[in-house]
């Protein structure tokens, strides 16, 4: 980040230029990127009649709390169940992804073998090939995993592996091989080398992956739509979709729901803002 600011030595010290460009960009960014979020927030606190006008008029009465309660208690507290399910799926899938992808990335980077070509081809195929939906359902049914939370976790792992492996592989290349060799000479078994020496050193990229993957999985709509139907399996994004028809005349509740669904990513973003950008770019460009 500091490197960015140091990049362009100024030609002449024109003082007004950065200010004018910045202010102009800020004005445009406000309209383009802030106004839509203000719109969501504003509708969420209006009453039903005001919200149906879909405008920026000041609410005639504030009922944020009541809207909040209405959305939460809708259909027998479906949203709370959805938060629970989404959290279980996200935590489970991300934990598995981290360990499994790091193991693959580690051996893939360290060991020269004929397998590497095949593994890399499969990893890249995973980035490119769209998942075959109905055959996947068929396989899940065969394994007894269709419509189950663990099935959903494993699907998210399968779909997230390629990206995670690539990121780990690129990062492991920057860790000196002498480190694992020292541990091996001290008599460490492969698993010990990996869990005690390598995995702790992967922390920066692990944090990035946790952030990126947990947001992606929490926000995922398509996969739960296909592989996790059923009322008791509802996830956060699906509540929005399920409520859409029901709330078509209650835009205030729909947008309160949007607002509530946006809060977890917002929290993650506030805490890991720099980390996301730094880690993302490290992997993406070296890739």
């Amino acid at each position, binding site marked *: 980040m500091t490197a960015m600011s140091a990049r362009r030595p100024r030609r002449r010290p024109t003082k007004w230029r950065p200010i004018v*460009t910045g202010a102009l960009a800020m004005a445009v960014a406000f309209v383009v*990127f802030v106004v839509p979020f203000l719109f969501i927030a504003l509708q969420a606190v209006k009453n039903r009649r005001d919200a149906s006008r879909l405008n920026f008029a000041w609410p005639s009465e504030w009922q944020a709390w009541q809207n909040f309660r209405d959305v939460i208690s809708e259909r027998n507290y479906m949203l709370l169940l959805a938060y629970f399910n989404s959290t279980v799926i996200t935590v489970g899938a991300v934990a598995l992804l981290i360990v499994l*992808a790091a193991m693959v990335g580690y*051996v893939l980077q360290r060991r020269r073998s004929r397998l590497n070509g095949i593994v890399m081809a499969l990893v890249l195929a995973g980035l490119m090939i*769209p998942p*075959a939906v109905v*055959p996947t359902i068929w*396989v899940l049914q065969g394994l007894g995993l269709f419509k189950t939370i663990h099935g959903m976790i494993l699907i998210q792992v399968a779909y997230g592996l390629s990206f995670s492996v690539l990121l780990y592989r690129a990062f492991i290349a920057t860790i000196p091989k002498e480190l694992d060799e020292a541990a091996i000479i001290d008599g460490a078994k492969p698993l010990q080398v990996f869990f005690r020496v390598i995995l702790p050193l992967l922390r920066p990229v692990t944090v990035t992956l946790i952030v990126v993957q947990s947001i992606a999985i929490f926000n995922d709509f398509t996969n739960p739509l296909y592989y996790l139907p059923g009322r008791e399996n509802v996830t956060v994004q699906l509540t929005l979709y399920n409520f859409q028809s029901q709330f078509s005349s209650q835009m205030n509740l729909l*947008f309160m729901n949007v607002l509530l669904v946006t809060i977890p*990513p917002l929290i993650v973003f506030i805490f890991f803002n720099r980390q996301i950008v730094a880690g993302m770019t490290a992997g993406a460009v070296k890739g």
Partner: protein
Amino acid sequence: MAAGVGLSSADVRLQGRAPGRTRRRSPYPTWFFLPAAVIYGALFLLPTVASLWFSLTRWTLFEAEFIGFENFRQFFREPFLVQGVVNTLIYGALTSGLKTVLGLLLAVLLTGNILFRGTLRTLVFFPVLVSTIGVGFAFEAMMHPTKGVINVALEAVGIDGPGWITNPSLALVSVALVDVWKGVGLATVIFMAGIVSIPADYYEAARIDGATRWQLFWRVTVPLVRPATVTVVTLSLIGGLRYFELIWAMTGGGPGFSSDVIASVIYKQYQAGFYGLATAGNVILFGIIALVVLPLTWWFNRREVDL
């Protein structure tokens, strides 16, 4: 469990070689691949391979009756399915192109010396993290033909705004624009990293030779951010071609079938119980992505050699 199986087979192999002791057991055991390979193989590779067969059948999930290429024939005979194919290409090209161009311009702006730089970076990136469905609903409301904020604002300056998502010839483009709004932050971040890794000396040298800002951009920045450009174009193209969440949230493929893409057609056929046809759609989507992305990657790599 999977790990145990891998270990024992490694042991067997080791015993076979034990007398010569030519090769130590590697400290980087291949069985590390195994747990990931089992999940990936069962839930991604197997369905992908199976799709090649099931796309040739009339399929109820319990019984599959072989019907040859009938599903594919139907896909290219039904006008609305053909439109889905065309729309997929339009959507992919439009979103990928705009994200690349706007992302690069924003990255140049946001690595330059301007006021509010940190805040601007945050604002541009934030939509990437927000729920697609939520964004879709918000823009659907803002693009309402009469009440929507956008058209009300346009009216205030004397422009008669179009029916962004109610006009069949505009719906797909409107959704694509929202997609760009949501995704341009990621492209920007990747380009920013690319720009930052260009040594400052190059700019300095070019300036001493009297290059203008415009020339600096075209002759230094654009050629040297190539790796980032390749990443952005490829990722956004693959994403754009197989994506339907936003379309589903905003238009549901409508009005009519005017904003249907292959991915949404697959979902509709799946819902209707035409599993063979849905799977054929999947195979076609894969074919299109391969046909578009592989030559592109090849072309990018070739250009790299030229440089």
